[in-house]
């Protein structure tokens, strides 16, 4: 079984069983990383006849593409995530509190009641959505980083 599925730029691996190294003879590590940047992803493990525009865009490896492949395509996702998470973080604000002297809105303070103010809403809808989007983006990035690490190891070893 080959660990990677070579596409156009990658020389086909010898079909003689399990292979760990993917670097072709005479190929530099950077050339190997560049030629396999699209293969270490969900899209990359699919048979070529199963790949279409949606699988290429939605199931690619953005980290590898930015570092070694077509950076203009990979960076779009990262820039969007970075900008989006920062603007959501800045925009959603804090959950309101009421019923104590420490309420975040001054008019909701009650005379004579001290201690931490209970929150009116545990989390706002926008906070929940922001948390979900940040969480899924982090997991996706972690997987992409892991696959790029596997790619780096594969390219460090000659076939």
């Amino acid at each position, binding site marked *: 079984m080959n660990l990677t599925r070579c596409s156009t730029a990658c020389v086909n691996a010898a079909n003689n069983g399990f292979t760990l190294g993917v670097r072709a003879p005479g190929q530099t590590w950077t050339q190997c990383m560049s030629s396999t940047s699209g293969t270490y992803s969900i899209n990359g493990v699919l048979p070529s006849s199963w790949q279409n525009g949606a699988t290429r865009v939605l199931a690619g490896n953005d980290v590898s593409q930015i570092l070694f492949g077509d950076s203009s395509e990979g960076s*779009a996702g990262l820039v969007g995530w970075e900008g989006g998470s920062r603007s959501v973080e800045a925009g959603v604000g804090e959950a309101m509190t009421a019923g104590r002297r420490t309420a975040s809105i001054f008019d909701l303070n009650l005379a004579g009641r001290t201690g931490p103010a209970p929150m009116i809403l545990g989390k706002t809808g926008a906070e929940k959505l922001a948390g*979900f989007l940040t969480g899924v983006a982090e997991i*996706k990035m972690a997987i992409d980083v892991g696959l790029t690490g596997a790619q780096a190891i594969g390219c460090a070893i000659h076939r």
Partner: protein
Amino acid sequence: MEKTTKQQIRSGLRLGAGAGGFLIAAILIGNGGDRIIASAGSHQIPWLGWAELVIAAAILLLTAQVWFLLLGGYMLFGAIKGLFLFATGSFPSHGFSTRLEPLGIAVYGVATLALLYRFSQTPPTLLDRVALTVFLFCFVIPWIGPSSALSWSQMIGLAVLLASWGISRWRAPHDPECNAHGVKA
């Protein structure tokens, strides 16, 4: 409330097992698909290929409560990339012919993400897990579709996810005293 170290370890292992299971299932689907495609001309039934697909389906069913997050990540980044490609009109390696194709993919990604959001509030039921697994198989095994960007099977997968959302809404207990927002009148 702060999580204890034990809870954090358990949560990390659960997340790792789910994401690892997803990747193993993806490799099994790819290998199984290769075997089935390779045997298309011959009269032999590719048992090993089908077995790999069945094992992948079982892994996906068991770990759906974790890998839906990873699927959401793929859809989030993909939707942003689709919008970026639509805005720039430059698609060097994706083979799109019009700007509408990456826009369609962005809409598909956002719609999927919206349908996945409810699982972050309530864990997926058995029916939801089946729907998620069917969605994934439909996504990675595309049939010829209206364009090179999206296939019919990918749209069917989205419809299955939509149906599971509809069923969950229909099954949810309704309190007649509650208004549309679930607040008691």
